[in-house]
Each structure stands twice: as structure tokens, then as C-alpha cells.
């Protein structure tokens, strides 16, 4: 059973456009929602994270929007660049380190066309 549902599976965006990736969850025990970025040949790396008591978090061109009532969150990449081409994973965490507490979405392969 997939704890976090992610869409779309792949996305092609023109340079300068906005990339939007959506995720949804059911378990209200989740209390952190991170996004990981994975370049080809590399492992995933933490990109940005948000708590459910915040509706939006922005870091540079990357913004997480969070809708607690709908149990949905999304990643927006503004002014998308070819260097943003990567696979993006949303995830949800229950807030305590160690145990099996980080659940990943299925991933979105983003391609930014020059």
C-alpha cells in the first residue's frame, strides 16, 4: 500500500516554465513532508521540507505548497532550468528518527528542455 501518492510519473517542461509535482497522503500522523532530488547516477538528496502547520515554504526557485485539509502537497519549480532535470520524490515522515518513518512517493522524472 502506497502511503504517499505522487503524480505525474514524468514531466517535460520548457526552460523558464513552471514545473509542478503533486503528492497526496492519508495518514494524519505524518508531520514532515520533504522532497528529495535525484540526478542520474546519484542517490537522492534532500531538497526542501515543510511542516503541516505551514501552507507554503520557499527556497529560491523551489516552493512547497501544503493543503492540510485536502492532505495534499506539491512542489513548484519556478523558472525551470535544464539543470533541474532530475527525478523528484515526495515523502512523508512521522517525526522520529531511526525507525521506518520515511515513506516515499513513486517519483517524477522531470525533463527541462532548453
Amino acid at each position, binding site marked *: 500500500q502506497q502511503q504517499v501518492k505522487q503524480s505525474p510519473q514524468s514531466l517535460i517542461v520548457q526552460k523558464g516554465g513552471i514545473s509542478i509535482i503533486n503528492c497526496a497522503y492519508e495518514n494524519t500522523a505524518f508531520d514532515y513532508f520533504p522532497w528529495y532530488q535525484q540526478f542520474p547516477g*546519484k542517490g537522492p538528496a534532500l531538497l526542501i521540507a515543510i511542516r503541516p502547520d505551514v501552507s507554503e515554504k520557499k527556497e529560491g526557485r523551489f516552493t512547497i505548497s501544503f493543503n492540510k485539509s485536502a492532505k495534499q502537497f506539491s512542489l513548484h519549480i519556478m523558472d525551470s532550468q535544464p539543470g533541474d532535470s532530475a527525478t523528484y520524490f515526495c515523502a512523508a515522515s512521522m517525526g522520529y528518527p531511526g525507525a521506518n518513518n520515511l515513506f516515499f512517493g513513486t517519483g517524477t522524472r522531470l525533463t527541462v528542455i532548453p
Partner: protein
Amino acid sequence: DVKVTQSSRYLVKRTGEKVFLECVQDMDHENMFWYRQDPGLGLRLIYFSYDVKMKEKGDIPEGYSVSREKKERFSLILESASTNQTSMYLCASSPRGGLSYEQYFGPGTRLTVT
């Protein structure tokens, strides 16, 4: 700089062989994880360890075992490799007192079982 290394980037094994995948982290992290990554399925947790000689099953432990004799090293063992274990294997680590949602990943081992 945080570093997780995996013993091989690419590995080709035959059906029925015993396969060892090694992971080493140099960050003195207590927690270590093994995931497999498959297209459309995201990252699925196989096993994790929160201390030396301790291990816990993740979501898909069948056909795998692990060993953690030293804090910095976490090994994934495929007792008798099968073709459905062809996948990308990712190791990760995190500190016990760190952010619950931040794991540090190695570059992955792409295993092909023929």
C-alpha cells in the same frame, strides 16, 4: 562533507548466486537503511538498522538479509539471487538525534541478475 559509499556501482550476477552489497558511511550515524528503487515504484525500504547488530525489516524484506557488525558498515545480502531482484539498490544513513526526514544516500548499486 557527508559521505555514504557503496562498494559497486554496477554488478552482474547469475541466478542462485549469493550476493553481497556493502555500504559504508563516514558520518558516525546510528541509523542505516537499504532501499531498492524501481521505475514507477519509488524507493522501497528493505531493511534498516538503528544500532550495531540491530536490524529491522522494512516493507520488502523477503529474499534479503542484512548484517551490521560495525557502526559504519551495513551489508545487504541476497541469499540466492533471482531475476526479480534486478534493481537499483540504495543505502542511506541518518543520525539518531537528527532531523527525522533527512537521510543521506549513497550513489546506488545497479544489480542485474541473469
